[in-house]
């Protein structure tokens, strides 16, 4: 299969995440908890030429639709992304990302002294700021490299 074919090949059913900022595809996979062991068929395009973006990444996940939590975190690292829900090879729904007010349970707090990093029954919770996120517990502000704080299972 040629490179061109891989990029345009349609999937029967699942989700295509398009217009991902170039270089973020692996972080998108991390958010979705995809490490190759979970059995889904996944295609990844990196640095694909794009009219709008110059270059973009694209991720196609077969037989899976995303949860709202996953979509919320995606919006933090890939705000321009579009999410296409595919059924019978057709796009049945196209979703543009909206930044949520807060994200729960998906990022871990970089402050080692934060109660969310102790062994307590509490989910992380971050307020989404214009240019970063802020821990609701210890108030630490994270602006750089959010993807590094994704709490992957």
């Amino acid at each position, binding site marked *: 299969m040629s490179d061109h074919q891989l990029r345009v090949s349609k999937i029967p059913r699942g989700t295509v995440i398009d217009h991902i900022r170039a270089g973020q595809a692996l972080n998108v996979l991390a958010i979705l908890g995809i490490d190759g062991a979970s059995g889904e068929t996944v295609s990844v395009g990196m640095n694909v030429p794009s009219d709008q973006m110059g270059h973009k990444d694209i991720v196609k996940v077969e037989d899976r639709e995303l949860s709202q939590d996953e979509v919320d975190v995606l919006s933090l690292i890939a705000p321009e992304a579009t999410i296409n829900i595919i059924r019978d090879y057709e796009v049945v729904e196209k979703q543009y990302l909206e930044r949520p007010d807060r994200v729960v349970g998906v990022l871990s707090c970089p*402050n080692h*002294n*934060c*109660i*969310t*990093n*102790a*062994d*307590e*029954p*509490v989910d992380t919770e971050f307020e989404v*700021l214009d240019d970063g996120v*802020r*821990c*609701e*517990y*210890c*108030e*630490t*502000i994270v602006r750089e490299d959010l993807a590094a704080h994704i709490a992957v299972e």
Partner: protein
Amino acid sequence: MRHDHLITAKQLSREDVESVLDRAAEFDADPAAFGDRHPDAILGLCFYEPSTRTKMSFETAIKRLGGDAVDMGTVESSSVKKGESLADTARVVAGYADALVLRHPSQGAAKMVGEFVDVPLLNAGDGAGHHPTQTLLDLYTIRENAGLDDLTIGIMGDLKYGRTVHSLAHALTNFDASQHFVSPESLKLPRSVRYDLHEAGANVREHTELDDILPELDVLYVTRIQRERFPDENEYQEIAGEYGIDLETLEDAKDELTVMHPLPRVDEIAPEVDDTEYAAYFEQAHNGVPVRMALLDQLLEGDR
């Protein structure tokens, strides 16, 4: 106060602050006269870090109101040592008591416990996070000595890790106060505090030299610079010397300057300052009891 828990000074509106301080003034005038306010109240003290003074002032406050305190003891001797979570311990103690006081080394601990307990919770310090009852007694002292409006205050020392500084700075945004922060470069206010002060539209300036601002100050709030923050002892000595005050430093200050410190001090304030009109730090420590009486009174009242 509209809140059941006091977790951060950010919760406090100007009205909240004023109502606590007014009530504290009544208790302060005659602390022994209120022994029948809350005769059956039990206050649960959960101190995961040693803080004899804060604990004693809460104990004194509840006893002055006619109630009593139960204490989980030191962490070493309790079930915490056996690995019980903070959330579980707090729920158990909340079952015994009418209100809880928590001191914990982790930031955000009080917010979390507040989600698990259904009695009022007072945060008595969570790591480098918040210490709102200290803030209220600081405000009480400032109001008594300099007034809370048209105030020019300097806050000096370890502004990075000093939770009392963070809480106080938030609370002062309710008032007409210009805040001047004086610290070495390495101990400036953290990003999150600066963010909040900016959001609150606070009137804030940062300095590295006290001299630049001292003559304008009504209040100088000094905090301790902790030796253990510095890998190099010489570097600590240099900084500690520069951010301490003595009578010579104060020559350029207004006569009415009020000098405060959350205590304990090491050598930030020379003992020769103690006997001057400037010194308000022992009075400040004393104010902990009436202010905590006022807070407990409000919370226990709301609980009825």
